[in-house]
């Protein structure tokens, strides 16, 4: 009693402040009270080769995902999700159905993803990116053609990807073959690409050598270098091309699977 503020100077009651609430406390409160599930999003933190990934979803679709970072804690993700979508993100014990297999296999193209709030251009670009198969890369001009938008729209839309990893922006490259990695550090992109079996060193070599496309001199078909058909061309028959025009002039046609540009 002689020193009533002594403990305060020492910073309160050390050790008691960090009382952990169970992760799904808020969710159980909302269910107990009877708030309709349509009124809020739930989220989980899942593991990916590039670290933790927060994935938020409404009852019908994934509404946002972001890689955890020193400045992106669970609370920061909640705040950001709220300001972007206007919906509360409530911690949940279970992820949206289909997210875990999509992350495991890299095949997320059929996962319902809600892109409301984005511009028409951004939506179309991101939908085109979703169509890039796992383990393959596509250049900006290809994405622009698929999205039916000018190429200048592509990189800004990738930068604003609100559903990291599940919309695979790490599979987008510049037209010279170098990865785009807009909106996150290149190490993250490399980790994601390597986890899909992409040989990042070989891709860098090809891009440095100016080989944007690979053709086979037995079939006279040219592909993107990560296309499954390009990967099975034996070294003796591999013909690199800098542009689609070069390939066409050499008498090659575009692959019908990876559909490279023709002009």
């Amino acid at each position, binding site marked *: 009693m002689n020193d*009533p503020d002594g*403990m305060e100077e020492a910073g309160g*009651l050390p050790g008691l402040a960090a009382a952990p609430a169970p992760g799904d*406390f808020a969710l159980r*409160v909302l269910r*107990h*009270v009877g708030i309709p599930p349509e009124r809020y999003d739930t989220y989980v933190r899942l593991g990916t080769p590039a670290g933790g990934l927060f994935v938020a979803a409404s009852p019908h679709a994934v509404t946002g995902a972001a890689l955890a970072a020193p400045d992106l804690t669970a609370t920061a993700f909640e705040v950001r999700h709220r300001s972007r979508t206007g919906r*509360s993100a409530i911690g949940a014990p279970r992820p949206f159905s289909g997210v875990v297999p999509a992350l495991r296999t890299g095949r997320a193209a059929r996962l319902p993803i809600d892109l409301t709030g984005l511009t028409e251009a951004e939506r179309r670009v991101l939908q085109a990116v979703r169509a890039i198969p796992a383990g393959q890369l596509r250049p900006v001009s290809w994405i622009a053609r698929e999205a039916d938008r000018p190429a200048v729209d592509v990189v800004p839309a990738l930068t604003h990807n609100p559903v990291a990893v599940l919309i695979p922006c790490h599979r987008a490259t510049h037209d010279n073959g170098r990865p785009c990695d807009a909106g996150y550090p290149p190490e993250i992109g490399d980790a994601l690409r390597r986890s899909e079996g992409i040989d990042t060193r070989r891709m860098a070599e090809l891009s440095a050598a100016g080989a944007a496309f690979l053709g086979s001199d037995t079939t006279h078909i040219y592909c993107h270098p990560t296309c499954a058909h390009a990967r099975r061309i034996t070294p003796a028959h591999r013909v690199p091309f800098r542009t689609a025009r070069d390939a066409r002039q050499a008498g090659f046609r575009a692959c019908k699977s990876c559909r490279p540009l023709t002009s």
Partner: protein
Amino acid sequence: MFFPVMDEMAEQLTDLLAMDLDGGFTELVRIHGTAVHAFLFRVSGSAADADDLGQDTFLRAYTALQGYDPERRRALRPRAWLMTIAANVWRNHVRTAIRRPVAAVSVDETEDGWPDARPGPEESAATSEDRDRLVAALSELPEIHRVPVVLRHVIGMSYAEVAEVQGCPVGTAKAQVSRGLGSLRRLLAQDHRYGR
């Protein structure tokens, strides 16, 4: 550390509550759920009780909000208001527990129904001897001191907010906190002396 409350966020929250009850309530739970749980955990000393009483606190809050007009919802100070409800819920719980002693329940039921008094995984993960002693000492404080000490030093509320929860002048709240801390210190010193 303490539970930060950004003024800006609190302002948006009451606006939201005034305009859209369900949407605002969802944010209320998201922002203040952890603090309400932490308060109840430290005053009751049991994670299971904190969970049940926390659910009850928010149910009461929601029912009350339904009866408030938008202006009243806008004027709320959400954290102090929630803590007031939580403190009442806890006091009611303690009173009921005294009135209905455990002996009234048949032995079979107590087997499954009794909350496990041992520390749960989340508690034992960070358990240290000092913390155990502090928790034990806290549970020996009388309610009138325990609530303000937890509000001030676990939740990190200002004396003005503590006074609002306790329904007393700020000076009284300060005195309650400092008496509580004094008792805590004495209890810890005793422990030390008897080598517990």
